[in-house]
């Protein structure tokens, strides 16, 4: 958990019913979300509206409908003020090849309003921070994809933003470079105190570095919140018994529980029809059944989901936004 996320703060990003079309193609179809800080993953398949949402948050395009707020400001009306306090690392890898890394990063710092001397010092410092201290005078065109991704990260944080938006920052990296990049991103959130919105379609990355996640599908937010909450969304318990599971299954079904099993491991939740049971009540039910049957138990614990299960459970694994006549308001959930 990052320092930023541990401190209760007002949402750094808020969106309500945001609709955006590119021509006649809908990109966002009523997205509603609230992000309170820390490192947040923006998950979704290609075409789900992630990059469009980042563009709207930067005030680069106005939404067709809906309301946006970044750091308490409307980016459509106060774009320059928002962008002065926000860093952005784009998805593409192409940067001016004949410019030295330190000159490039210093230039971006000056663009964000830092005086020349301060920009020069900070450019060198952040290049050291991202592991390019020795390489900082190399032209960008001679750098590897991994190094260019680090330069993009450096230019996104050189002006000490409150929030940084990273669009697919591990795109094109090999596994080792990817690990390094993820460690850096986690450090930006935890040590530097900068809120991070990490756009990615790689579930594992978000799971490893993020405190919160927002899952986009077809231009709408289908799940959002702290990762712990999202992963506990499956409800129920996991129980591993010593011996034959058949009597346990029959007894639990007899008491209305919903379950499936894999070998000696059972995944048990409350009845599908009838009053909902919380985790403790389900655990009590399982304990009573096991005690009645005299079956030994090896493990009994609340069931957690992987982010992949959350993503799949949100029902959708891909696809572009579809037109909605009047998008129903979605619950705003924050990290």
């Amino acid at each position, binding site marked *: 958990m990052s320092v930023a996320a541990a401190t209760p703060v007002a949402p750094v990003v808020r969106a309500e019913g945001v609709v955006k079309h590119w021509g006649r193609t809908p990109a966002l179809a009523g997205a509603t979300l609230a992000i309170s800080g820390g490192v947040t993953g923006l998950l979704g398949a290609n075409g789900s509206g992630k990059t469009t949402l980042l563009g709207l948050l930067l005030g680069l395009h106005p939404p067709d409908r809906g309301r946006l707020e970044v750091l308490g400001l409307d980016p459509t009306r106060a774009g*320059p003020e928002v962008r002065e306090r926000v860093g952005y690392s784009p*998805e593409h890898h*192409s*940067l001016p090849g004949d410019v030295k890394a330190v*000159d490039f990063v210093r230039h971006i710092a*000056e663009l964000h309003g830092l005086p020349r001397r301060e920009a020069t010092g900070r450019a060198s*410092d*952040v290049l050291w921070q991202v592991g390019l201290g020795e390489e900082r005078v190399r032209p960008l065109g001679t750098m590897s994809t991994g190094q260019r991704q680090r330069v993009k990260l450096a230019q996104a944080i050189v002006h000490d933003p409150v929030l940084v938006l990273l669009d697919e920052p591990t795109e094109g990296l090999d596994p080792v470079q990817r690990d390094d990049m993820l460690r850096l991103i986690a450090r930006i959130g935890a040590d530097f105190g900068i809120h991070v919105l990490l756009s990615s379609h790689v579930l594992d990355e978000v799971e490893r570095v993020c405190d919160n996640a927002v899952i986009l599908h077809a231009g709408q937010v289908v799940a959002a919140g702290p990762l712990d909450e999202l992963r506990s969304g499956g409800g129920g318990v996991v129980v591993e018994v010593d011996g034959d599971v058949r009597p346990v299954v029959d007894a639990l079904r007899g008491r209305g529980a919903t379950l499936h099993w894999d070998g000696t491991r059972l995944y048990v939740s409350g009845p599908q029809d009838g009053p909902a049971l919380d985790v403790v009540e389900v655990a009590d039910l399982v304990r009573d059944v096991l005690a009645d049957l005299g079956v030994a138990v090896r493990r009994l614990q609340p069931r957690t989901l992987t982010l992949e299960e959350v993503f799949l459970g949100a029902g959708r694994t891909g696809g572009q936004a579809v037109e909605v006549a009047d998008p129903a308001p979605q619950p705003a959930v924050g990290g």
Partner: protein
Amino acid sequence: MTARILDRGYRRYSGERRGVVGAVRTLVLHSVQRALGLRRSAWAKVLPFGTVLLAYVPAIVFVGVVSLFPAREIRDLVLPSYASYFGYVQLLVVLFVAFVAPEILCTDRRTGMLGVYLASPLTRDTYLVAKALATAGVLAFVTIGPPLVMLVAFIIQGEGPDGPGDVALTLARIFGAGLAISVLYTAFSMGLSSLTDRKAFATAGLILFFLMSNVVTGVLVGALGLAENAIVLNIFFLPFALVEKIHGESVRFPDVTTAACVLGALAWTMVWAAVCRSRYAHLQVTR
């Protein structure tokens, strides 16, 4: 024992931020440097520096001649006027125009830097203002500088402006004429460059447009017998006709009216500026 720095730490910044004005200033300077090849390879400097140098060569030669030869020997030497000087360097100016705006404008879209710039306090409009200032500033090296050197030549020869009022008027005409060429060609070259993100295509397009407008106007005036004012359609000659009017000379374009030149220059400038602005207003920049 040697000390090693293991972690330089991350410093927060709470100092001054210069906002939009600072961003525009930074982008202007960066774009001028880029167009002139500064902080880039030696090869990138050849074309801009070569062109600028060549544009100054006639003026420097004239200064050399009037400086080195005795006054009595050059008394009857007629130096080219401020407006007619452009007859020597017009082709160079046009080639410089065809090179500068594509370098300043197309590169950002080609490399994806446009998205990075617009993620700063710059807006699309302030970005274009910065690019226009940079383009006009670089073009001023060849539209204002050489006539200033010519002024030095005239002063050495004893044919320069007489008195402070005359000096001020001459300087105003030199700067006004240079700016007129720069502004018109800035709008034109940026407008056309906004249509492609490839520098080579933009440069070729600009040169082709210069040639075509020259040919079309030649046909209209020569074969169809249209009035000389039809030169307002010729973007290759129009700025230089305007320069003649600003300097109050009638050397190459005596039959073209001042009003036609001014209206033509305004029309070209506004049309191409509108093309450029419209193009950028609709660009999707986050990909």
